């Protein structure tokens, strides 16, 4: 049990949540990833979150990480994982997209444009920023990534999938 300090502001809680990163992409906070769907503060901090992919194996890890981080700031926290608000790659913030690119992952294009595999054909290479690329596999090393090849860099890269 953590002894609660004074009631924090919503802004403060989001600031703390910025410290919690995606375990697979340590440059991207859960806030920028868009998986935090609601925060309420009463006797404790209640956080609602939703997974990027239903089968994401990192979800429990993220949940525990949130609780630990808030405990560290003297707050008791509870995390509810639900699907009330469905995650989409469009929920990744602009700051998050820049972080993804720096990390070497192509950010996802607008998911509303995604109606056929053809749309996915030319991702922007995170190295050279050009689109002389091809989709090698819509499935990648994690559920949220696809594998591309850059014809200019002559190297493979991964894209955070639009969904």
């Amino acid at each position, binding site marked *: 049990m953590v002894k609660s300090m004074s009631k924090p502001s919503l802004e403060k809680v989001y600031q703390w949540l910025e410290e919690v990163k995606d375990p697979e992409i340590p440059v991207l906070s859960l806030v920028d990833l868009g998986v935090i769907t609601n925060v309420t503060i009463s006797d404790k901090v209640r956080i609602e979150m939703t997974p990027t992919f239903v089968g994401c194996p990192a979800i429990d890890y993220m949940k525990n990480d949130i609780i630990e981080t808030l405990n560290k700031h003297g707050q008791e926290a509870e995390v509810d994982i639900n*699907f009330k608000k469905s995650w989409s790659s469009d929920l990744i913030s602009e700051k998050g997209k820049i972080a993804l690119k720096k990390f070497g992952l192509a950010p996802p294009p607008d998911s509303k444009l995604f109606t056929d595999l053809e749309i996915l054909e030319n991702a922007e290479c995170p190295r050279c920023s050009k689109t002389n690329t091809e989709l090698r596999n819509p499935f990648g090393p994690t559920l949220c990534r696809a594998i591309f090849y850059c014809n200019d860099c002559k190297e493979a890269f991964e894209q955070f999938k639009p969904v």
Partner: protein
Amino acid sequence: MNNEALKELLYKMADDQLILGHRNSEWTGFGPLLEEDIAFSSMAQDKVGHSLALYTILQELGEQDPDTVAFTRNAEQFHNSLLTELPNGEYDFSLIRHFLYDTAEALRFEMLTQSSFEPLAQLSAKIRGELRYHTMHANTWIKQLGSATTESITRLQKSLEYALPYALGMFEKSPFENALISEGIFAGEQVLEDKWKRKVEEVLAQTQLQLPAWDTITPHLGGRVGKHTEHLQPLLDEMSEVLRIDPTAEW
């Protein structure tokens, strides 16, 4: 809301996802090419994840926890369709099954986004987006290999004819069909089957594969009421092996 009807629907969907998820995972390390190895492994992870989410809803309705439900039931307590439990066979069969099953699965979740049972409608809205990758994957390969060489076409044709009676078994009617429909939980197997046939026809028409007339195919039923082929129990034995050796193991 009719809880018995709802549970029956959730169990058959969750069991389908778990069993085919397990079959897909058997391709890990054995895919005909690396990309397909990764694709089937990813789809396995998705499907097993979907089953967990569905078993979690069942737990909220009073059923046992997901691990107990997934790992301790015997074959006759499973409600998956026979199609999902058949061994992987060669890649042509796995691909045909993937196409026939995932087409139905995507349509089922699409329909369920309209469900009057809110937790299922919310989950379905999420799963629907993920399944676009699965159906696109299936359609891409069926279109390519269904029009490629004599060998690829002959193999797929043979697998298609073998799989179709099992595929029609996916739409085996529930004893709660009327309750599900009248309560707006699910529009029913018949509606799904009709939508599925149109979609299968549409994709196969873009290949050199021949779809037999629907009325010449006799569905293989029984999966939904626990009457399975000899292939399910060995799969369950393998899936639950660690748990049976050491129920307290962390893995």
